[in-house]
């Protein structure tokens, strides 16, 4: 095929026309932008005076009765909105406000009534009877009854990610529409925390599971009703006027819009400019600066999470307790916490923080940065020129920072730390296959000591990737699980915890603070010790 020489010109002309047209179109648009930008500047100035509602949704603000909609920025995207099938914190931030559990952690994290008004325990401690609140409605208008509890619990046991929490549950039965019996195989003093400690144990509407809409259109009994989810609009919730606490005037916000801003710096900027009213976390290095900034409140409470690392006891020489203790005594936890969290954390040699008053154990047997003591232990074990493949993940960047600090702290002992930094999917795989000398992560959302210790340190349990096995600890943890007397139970856990620390099964580092930040226009919200994000009772001041 041949073409005349005219053709290139023809193409050129078309291109030129297209370019000119595009350029003109853009010029027009640009003019509008400038106008719009100027307008917004004014609005934003108003926002500085506290008028965040106006700035939050400039596109939709009509003059008259303005709905009070909070814009909440999340650092990651919910994967699914099915509470039983997600492990994503971003999903729970949303679902906390949509669903209810039988009981729930109160402000002091002790369990308080929610969908169950009261509960009783049989004399043999093997049957818990929950009396349900009457007249509670799902967001689709149907009344909540005992069958929903049975259905939800059976679904969690059969296919939920948290079925393991029902380990001691034999059956769940509806006695009548408003009474549920939970029968156990062994006494379980922590049953309330197990079956209602967070929204992974939410009571869901059976019909949404059957028609498959639960993942995208959650229907709960909570203070807010799910409206929509889209890549540009985020997740929109509206107030549930039939909420079972409507008598107290709750909820107060008219709605919540969750937007996803994955970059921490951008998220912070969006709060500062008033584009969003609340953010789920603050980069540690910005906490101090932000706290003193006008117009912004930083909520900060000691959290129940803990950061740790563990040495692989299936591999020599880490099966030698002296080697593990040497490392535990050579590190400087305060420096690690300071490096990674800029002071927004408390160094701890055990798992449970002091803020968890009922279960905390004040125990710190290791000297900090005791190189001489550590060297003596290593010499005693006959170990020299130790090299550690240290598994961390950039998906939790603090683990990378901490590993570098630990590498520096262990260097005087002649220990070489080879940091293996992989994505979390690979990390999980390598952890599961035992491909590490050491791994580092954190455990989050712990309330009861059983959450802190059992799965991680009991021989052969599913989270015991470090291969720890101490029959005494096993016996103590087993006994504590079924001990119904609180004081006796605390004594058992204290003994187990001390052994775990002494054996350096985990080398605990610190408990980080839970931090949220919000515009001063937001009222009636508090950062919680369990990191649950509850907007019931929150309001926006004009």
């Amino acid at each position, binding site marked *: 095929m041949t073409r005349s020489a005219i053709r290139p010109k023809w193409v050129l002309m078309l291109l030129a026309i297209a370019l000119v047209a595009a350029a003109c179109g853009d010029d027009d648009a640009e003019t509008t932008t400038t106008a719009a930008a100027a307008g917004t*500047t004014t609005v934003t100035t108003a926002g500085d005076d506290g008028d965040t509602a106006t700035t939050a949704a400039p596109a939709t603000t009509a003059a008259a009765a303005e709905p009070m909609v909070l814009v909440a920025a999340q650092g990651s995207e919910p994967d699914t909105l099915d509470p039983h099938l997600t492990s994503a914190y971003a999903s729970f931030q949303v679902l906390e406000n949509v669903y209810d559990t039988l009981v729930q952690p109160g402000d002091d994290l002790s369990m308080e009534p929610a969908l169950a008004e009261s509960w009783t325990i049989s004399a043999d401690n093997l049957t818990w009877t929950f009396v349900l609140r009457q007249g509670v409605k799902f967001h689709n208008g149907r009344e909540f009854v005992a069958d929903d509890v049975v259905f939800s619990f059976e679904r969690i046991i059969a296919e939920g*990610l948290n079925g393991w929490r029902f380990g001691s549950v034999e059956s769940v039965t509806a006695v009548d529409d408003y009474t549920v019996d939970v029968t156990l195989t062994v006494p379980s003093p922590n049953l309330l925390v197990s079956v209602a400690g967070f929204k992974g144990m939410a009571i869901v509407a059976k019909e949404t599971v059957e028609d498959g809409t639960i993942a995208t259109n959650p229907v709960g009994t909570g203070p807010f009703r799910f409206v929509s989810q*889209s890549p540009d609009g985020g997740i929109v919730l509206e107030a549930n006027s039939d909420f079972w606490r409507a008598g107290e005037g709750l909820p107060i916000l008219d709605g919540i819009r969750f937007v996803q*801003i994955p*970059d921490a710096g951008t998220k912070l900027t969006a709060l500062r400019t008033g584009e969003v009213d609340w953010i789920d976390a603050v980069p540690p290095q910005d906490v101090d600066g932000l706290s003193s900034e006008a117009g912004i409140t930083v909520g900060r409470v000691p959290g129940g999470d803990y950061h740790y690392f563990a040495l692989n006891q299936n591999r020599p020489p880490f099966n030698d307790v002296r080697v593990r203790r040497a490392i535990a005594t050579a590190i400087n936890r305060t420096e690690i916490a300071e490096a990674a969290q800029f002071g927004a954390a408390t160094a701890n040699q055990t798992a449970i923080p002091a803020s968890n008053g009922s279960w905390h154990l004040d125990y710190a047997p290791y000297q900090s940065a005791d190189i001489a003591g550590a060297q003596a232990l290593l010499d005693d074990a006959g170990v020299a020129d130790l090299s550690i493949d240290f598994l961390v993940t950039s998906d939790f960047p603090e683990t990378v920072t901490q590993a570098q600090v630990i590498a520096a702290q262990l260097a005087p002992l002649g220990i070489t730390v080879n940091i293996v930094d992989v994505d979390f999917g690979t990390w999980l795989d390598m952890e599961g296959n035992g491909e590490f000398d050491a791994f580092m992560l954190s455990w989050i959302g712990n309330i009861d000591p059983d959450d802190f210790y059992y799965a991680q340190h009991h021989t052969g349990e599913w989270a015991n990737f470090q291969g720890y096995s101490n029959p005494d600890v096993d016996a103590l943890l087993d006994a504590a699980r079924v001990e119904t007397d609180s004081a006796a139970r605390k004594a058992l856990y204290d003994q187990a915890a001390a052994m775990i620390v002494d054996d350096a099964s985990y080398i605990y580092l610190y408990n980080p603070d839970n931090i949220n930040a919000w515009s001063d226009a937001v009222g009636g919200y508090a950062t919680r010790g369990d990191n649950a994000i509850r907007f019931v009772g929150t309001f926006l001041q004009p």
Partner: protein
Amino acid sequence: MSQFLTKRILQMLVALLGVSIVVFALIHLVPGDPVRVALGTRFDQDLYDMLRERSGLDRPFIEQYFAWLGNALTGDLGLSFRNSQPVTSLVLERLPATITLAFAALFVAIVVALPAGIISAVRSGKPLDYAVSAASQVGISMPDFWAGVMYILLFALTLRWLPSSGYVSFLESPIEWLRHLVLPAITIGLISGSVITRFVRSAVLEALNQDYVRTARAKGLSEWRIIRRHVLPNAWIPIVTVVGLQLGFLMGGLVVVEVIFAWPGLGRLALTAVKDRDFTLLQGAVLYIAFMFLTINLIVDLIYVRLDPRVRVS
């Protein structure tokens, strides 16, 4: 011509098939699997086995592929493993944002690069050339995440002219759409523009040195006229090639820019799919990207023919 098109479209289908096979093979080579990632740190062997069985992940690799392929041929790309949503709709709902950003960025890039590259070539060796050259090299050396953060701090935080993040659909509010688009488009557009500038300069310089240009000069034609009549027509091919490459690259979504500006594009979706090892979702995203890329390449090849009559369609 129609024969040529038919052939190319057939080739495209074969290439797409190739892409799907490679994606499938790659995702199975990568450590970690979707169930393991979904379970997170709460690992439970029974639950793991059950979920694998339910999602068909326990079946042999080849069998899984053909099951997927069978559905794909009927237009069903399957459900995302993580949230059971149809992959097609997950990809489609991200498309407007991705296409918008790709074209806006390309627009910025071309508007910057064409004049800059031509001037730079015409004034080759002069101060203006060095200035353009230096600017484009800064643009190339400056990573997108660094530039993006700078623009956000300057235009969103300090000056408060533009929003820091998010995407508003054009239908909802054209003005907000544009305001949200400006910063990400400039971030990536200036980088692309720096790349294209280098090629424009080089191509124009090449053409300027041809004999016919010297002849035209000797005839006393004005410099602008020479560029328009003799230089540009001969410089288009490398320029079109690089513009096509840039567009193909932009159409695949831009992970970093999308993360920084909270832009709901395909790049983030594909990244999430990789992280979650969600292979059906990844297949969908990659197939779309491949399709776009192949189409753009086809168009580029057609433009070659239009631009240079000597280039035959094969």
